[in-house]
């Protein structure tokens, strides 16, 4: 096995072990979308009627509409959680240990990112299973088709988190950033309402949502769950991943990035 794969296996294995020993974190990550699905969506069902829009071929209930957005929400919160743990690891020193391994830094960061995304995907599937028993039935093959969509959307959101982690010097600054990132990104997207609904209240809001990369992550997942490929969403997600991964690598590059700033 090459040193690259050996390091990747070790980093993924470590994350898996951490995941197994922190079951509370797993459950906590599920509670949030479940509250949205079981409480919020149930309450809005009567108020929000949804017309037939792709990828749906018939009228759907609000609970059905909201599921892809809540799956993306799991990825989003986990990406930020991973970024927070990166900042913590850097302050506590274990990130230093990782970065002194004799492998390219981009590879180490990529492995770290992938490990976080795989854990998120497990959580997304656990949520989809609960949603199934709640009565949200998706095409059976949709559960398979959505896997690559979850992977690329998770990588995009993870790259955003990695970039944030590279710019934030101290743990206590992270909470503020989380609020400024997570909530606007989530609410200004198609996770909760379709774009045409947004346009009814404000075209500016609709345009902002249309530009939001998280919207494209949600749509990529939504279409994949119904066995369809949304090429535009895939393009935007891939582009956003490339940009933020590049910025994150720049941020973690000891020669050019922000690593050279002293923590005060």
């Amino acid at each position, binding site marked *: *096995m090459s040193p690259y794969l*050996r390091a990747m296996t070790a980093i993924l294995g470590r994350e898996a*072990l951490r995941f197994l020993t922190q079951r509370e974190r797993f459950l906590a990550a599920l509670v949030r979308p479940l509250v949205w699905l079981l409480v919020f969506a149930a309450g809005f069902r009567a108020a929000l009627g949804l017309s037939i829009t792709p990828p749906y071929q018939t009228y759907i209930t609000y609970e059905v509409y909201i599921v892809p957005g809540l799956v993306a929400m799991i990825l989003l919160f986990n990406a930020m959680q991973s970024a927070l743990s990166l900042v913590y690891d850097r302050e506590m*020193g274990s990130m230093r240990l990782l970065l*002194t*391994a*004799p*492998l*390219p830094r981009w590879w180490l960061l990529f492995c770290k990112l992938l490990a976080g995304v795989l854990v998120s995907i497990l959580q997304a599937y656990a949520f989809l299973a609960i949603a199934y028993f709640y009565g949200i039935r998706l095409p059976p093959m949709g559960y398979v088709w959505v896997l690559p969509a979850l992977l690329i959307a998770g990588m995009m959101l993870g790259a955003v988190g990695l970039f944030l982690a590279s710019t934030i010097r101290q743990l206590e600054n992270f909470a503020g950033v989380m609020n400024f990132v997570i909530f606007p990104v989530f609410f200004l997207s198609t996770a909760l309402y379709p774009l045409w609904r947004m346009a009814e209240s404000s075209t500016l809001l609709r345009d902002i949502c249309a530009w939001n990369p998280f919207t494209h992550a949600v749509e990529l997942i939504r279409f994949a769950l119904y066995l369809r490929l949304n090429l535009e969403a895939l393009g935007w997600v891939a582009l956003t991943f490339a940009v933020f991964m590049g910025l994150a690598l720049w941020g973690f590059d000891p*020669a050019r990035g922000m690593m050279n700033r002293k923590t005060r």
Partner: protein
Amino acid sequence: MDALEVADLSFRYGRKEALKSVSFHVASGEFCALLGPNGAGKSTLFALLTRLFVARQGRIAVMGQDLQAAPRAALAQMGVVFQQMTLDLDLSVARNLAYFGALHGLSRRDAALRATEVLERLDMAERAGEKARDLNGGHRRRLEIARALMHRPRLLLLDEPTVGLDARSRAAITTHVHGLARDDGLAVLWATHLVDEVTPSDTVLILHQGQILQRGRAQDIAPEHGLAAHFMALTEEPAA
């Protein structure tokens, strides 16, 4: 060939100059104590030596490998113990070592064999199955040293490794690391502000305000009043 060669190294945080044209070398088998008061620049120097930071001026070479030009080759020759503890507390001693071994390209089998060796070397063989969380401070440090030795480095860097430990643990760790330099021919750079960790035959580097003030054998540089008094006099801050 020197295990570590530092030439004309400078570094600034914005306008503040943290290191000013620092040059020194550490030979194989040499125990070099980097003495400096708090804020002298020791941690910055360590960050540069481990490539967490990159200096825009100066050169660092490990076993002849330039850290800037060939970082992977240089890092592969280096074992590091950071000032802050970097163990995964949820993992066992053996798993901590296996994880690090894998990061350095060791196969699972080689890592297990090497882990047994290094744990025996540091008198920790019987603790292989214990969780890192259950170890006391001294044993956690020993585990970190064992981990730093997993990939058979030729240079061992330790940044204030005895901070927060009791006298017995400190003595045990300094004895172990001196043994690694003496018996295994390992080059050791040991940063500290505690003069009593230095033995007379050690090489001493005194770093103050980002500059190397003195380099020499401990027994030679302060034969009259002792190293502690000499260090205090050299690094005394002017009265405000």
